[in-house]
């Protein structure tokens, strides 16, 4: 995705597509053909999420809470949205958090982008690039514009090969 696409001010892309405003978000399965064709790592990520969903209480030996189904659905929705926006990304690391959420982390060179979905009405994200002394951490609410988040994430995209 180019920054021109991300910068389109007239397009509607709000976090409510991922985060619930009160109604449950879509429970469509992650394995639709369109999504599979966008990311080569979808199947692996889907399997990982399935296994994470089955973790028992205290899975980390430190009192960790079972991952919430809603958090997993939010991750699936986020992946779907990235695919729909044409983002070229490697597979993120996907880990459960001790509080029942799911952490996604992308790293490319000195840059990193992480976002935690906990199944609630907000997600927390962090973009860091020590080489340019940047650290941006914020909450993402259903009414927030997603373009700012996608613009940060676009800095970790896989470079397009020249012919």
């Amino acid at each position: 995705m180019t920054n021109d696409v991300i910068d389109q001010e007239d397009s509607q892309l709000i976090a409510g597509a991922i985060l619930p405003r009160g109604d449950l978000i879509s429970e469509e399965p992650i394995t639709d053909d369109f999504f599979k064709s966008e990311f080569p790592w979808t199947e692996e990520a889907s399997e990982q999420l399935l296994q994470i969903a089955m973790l028992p209480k205290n899975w980390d030996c430190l009192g960790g809470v079972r991952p919430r189904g809603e958090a997993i659905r939010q991750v699936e929705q986020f992946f779907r949205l990235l695919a729909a926006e044409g983002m070229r990304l490697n597979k993120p690391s996907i880990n459960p958090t001790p509080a029942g959420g799911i952490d996604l982390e992308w790293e490319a060179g000195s840059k990193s982008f992480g976002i935690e979905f906990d199944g609630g009405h907000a997600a927390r994200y962090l973009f860091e690039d020590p080489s340019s002394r940047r650290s941006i951490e914020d909450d993402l609410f259903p009414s927030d514009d997603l373009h700012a988040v996608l613009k940060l994430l676009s800095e970790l995209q896989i470079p397009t090969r020249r012919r």
Partner: protein
Amino acid sequence: MTCWSGGKVSSSDDDRIDDDEIVYRLIQPGTHWFEPPDRIKSSSFKLRPGEMGISVFRAAFVSPADVRRILHATNSYPVAECRVGDIRRAVKGDQSALNLSVIVVDRGPEEPGHAEIRGDMTAAASKALSRLFKLVPQS
């Protein structure tokens, strides 16, 4: 002594943890549904509901094997280590100080050497800790 739900915070000078001390942290296991165990991620340094700090154990009191035994973890759970001074001097990606502290939180004789990393446990703090801690090779 001040009491917290997860143990007693010591205010005694005798319990001050020196910057040169090493602390251990139990890390999420590297089974097939998690990420490879050689990658320490931010999620290993996030708080559980009700927690006030990130639980660690002082190497002056316990070994990595002791940490697993205390927490009833199998050998598939890696242990990572870090110098206390490095935690106290941890910075965000923009190089601003996180001002984390490492303090003794006494959980009794069954958990010797227990301490906690305290401070504003933001995502930036979790990320910084994931960068600082290094895996202890399995013996």
